[in-house]
């Protein structure tokens, strides 16, 4: 076990390092001169030379990389040449939004998927199960950039229940905040619902075959009690596995959702920076986002191995 942890940590460190190299190299190796983008119409050879020196772009690559890493580790991710706002600052604004999106969307997904799976597993292949399974299968074909506009069309445009765009901070009140977050969260949740439902349903059906379920029935306990207090817990590992699978889709989906609903999260800011060739911001944000992604992935993977019910604990 300890050896496994160690191996994974080493892998994590290596990957993180590689990410940083990648992020660095992208900026410096691909064709396209960032100085042109920065200077715009003021592009003169002198100005370019000056900017190069200023940005330290004329030093050898390796020393540039080292400088950059040192800065990063001190929390200095650079600043946008447009807004002059530091990347760290922008991140501190953006991160809570992403967190809220993820939390709310996963809560929604679980609130929908778990009851559906519970009822479906009790009567597999009957009407409810078929309808639920088919619908969730359909959800697999609704990527966020398709589901999002549809939701906006129905709930914001036609029904006017929630605003179509814009983000209201928690400081402005929980109500408005939830209103602006609920639709994007649902759009994000759709992919997760399908995954959670399918995994949980399969797990529940397997658990229902176990002897201890027959014994619980023989005690005269109600079906509802048995499902919730006896069957759900052993099967909940599949929810964790589902979370692991969903991370990738959530990541992609968050970008889409933030742009669609104009929520100033990391994705939104990153896309803006890409449009405006704000290369330092792109570099810094991409680094943070990628590292976060990798760390979360490793974390979930690790939890999965740790909590695997097939592994008997001492």
């Amino acid at each position, binding site marked *: 076990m300890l050896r496994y942890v160690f191996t994974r940590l080493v892998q994590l460190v290596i990957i993180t390092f590689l990410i940083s190299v990648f992020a660095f190299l992208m900026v410096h190796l691909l064709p396209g001169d960032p100085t042109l983008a920065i200077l715009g119409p003021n592009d003169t050879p002198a100005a370019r030379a000056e900017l190069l020196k200023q940005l330290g772009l004329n030093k050898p690559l390796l020393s540039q990389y080292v400088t950059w890493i040192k800065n990063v580790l001190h929390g200095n991710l650079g600043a946008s040449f447009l807004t002059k706002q530091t990347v760290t600052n922008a991140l501190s604004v953006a991160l809570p939004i992403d967190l809220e999106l993820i939390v709310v969307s996963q809560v929604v997904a679980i609130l929908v998927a778990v009851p559906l799976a519970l009822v479906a597993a009790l009567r597999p292949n009957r009407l409810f199960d078929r309808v639920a399974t088919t619908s969730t299968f359909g959800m697999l074909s609704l990527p966020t*950039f398709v589901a999002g*506009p549809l939701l906006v*069309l129905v709930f914001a445009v036609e029904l006017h229940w929630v605003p179509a765009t814009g983000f209201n901070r928690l400081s402005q009140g929980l109500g408005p905040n939830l209103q602006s977050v609920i639709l994007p969260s649902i759009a994000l949740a759709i992919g997760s619902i399908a995954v959670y439902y399918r995994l949980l349903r399969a797990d529940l059906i397997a658990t229902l075959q176990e002897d201890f379920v027959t014994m619980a029935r023989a005690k005269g306990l109600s079906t509802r009690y048995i499902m919730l207090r006896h069957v759900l817990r052993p099967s909940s590992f599949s929810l964790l596995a589902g979370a692991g699978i969903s991370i990738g889709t959530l990541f*992609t989906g968050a970008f889409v959702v933030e742009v669609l609903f104009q929520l100033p999260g990391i994705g939104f800011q990153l896309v803006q920076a890409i449009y405006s*060739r704000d290369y330092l911001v792109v570099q810094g944000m991409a680094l943070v986002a990628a590292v976060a*992604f990798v760390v979360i992935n490793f974390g979930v993977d690790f939890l999965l191995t740790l909590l695997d019910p097939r592994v008997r604990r001492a």
Partner: protein
Amino acid sequence: MPDAHRDLTLAPSEMVAAEAGTESVLALEALAPAGTRKRRLGLLFWVCAGWIGLMVLLAVLASVLPLTNPNFQNYAALNAGPSIHHLFGTDDLGRDLFSRVIFGSRVSLVIGFAPVAIGLVTGGSLGLLAGYRSGVADTVLNAFSFVILAFPALLAIMVIETFWRPVSLWKLTVMFAVVAAPQLFRVIRATTLSFAGREFVTAARTMGASTPRILMRELLPNVVPAALSFALIGVAVAVVLEGALAFLGLSVGLPTPSLGNIINEGVNNNLLQSNPYIALWPSLYIFLLLTGLNLMADRLRSHFDVREVKL
């Protein structure tokens, strides 16, 4: 009992079994690799295959078909609803939505299928080899693919794109292929591993079959079904990824339409209110495409009884 000598599709191991005079069909089936079991793929599968085939056909023949120029702005018919002239209606610049969707589907389909095909050939063949013959190369490739797969694909592509301008179809294809190949490598390697230990492979080896022959005649027919199913899912994932990129404005640039950026256009400027069709038709197309792909992949998986391959 099938005539073993006539049936040239039988792998050497099956011929051996047949010649040994195994009477029981069941015994023969047990010896025979899984893919030869006869069960029907089902009507739904073929309907989906046909439907996707139609989509591909339309996309390929788009320039030849009598479609309005997708970029032609007809100011006389702004935001028109569906009609005989404009099957899907027009958008706010008077462009025919039907032809936009068809032309837009080209990008989605190319980026859906091409990288996966490339990945199958490169990653797949490497996976076949690695699964059959473990060794240093196998470990290296494994580590390599692990690294590539650990990166968030969308993010990586976005970042590369920022600086590898202008974005073009082939650049995107290359980037997607780089992401797809390790996945396919992993899957095919795992599947090959699970088959490489089976008796029919050992039997072939003892009969003196060379490695290429074993790979082609014994392992490949078994690995293909699992690979196919996964490849179809891969196409679906690629379509979604490209769509997301296009929605973000980071795919193939305008004026080339792409399903994702048509949806993007349909969402801006309150267009959802005035002309929801702009966003709806490409959404419907994507939904149908993905459903078809998912259904086919699912059916393939249950038909060949492929367990979820642990990567």
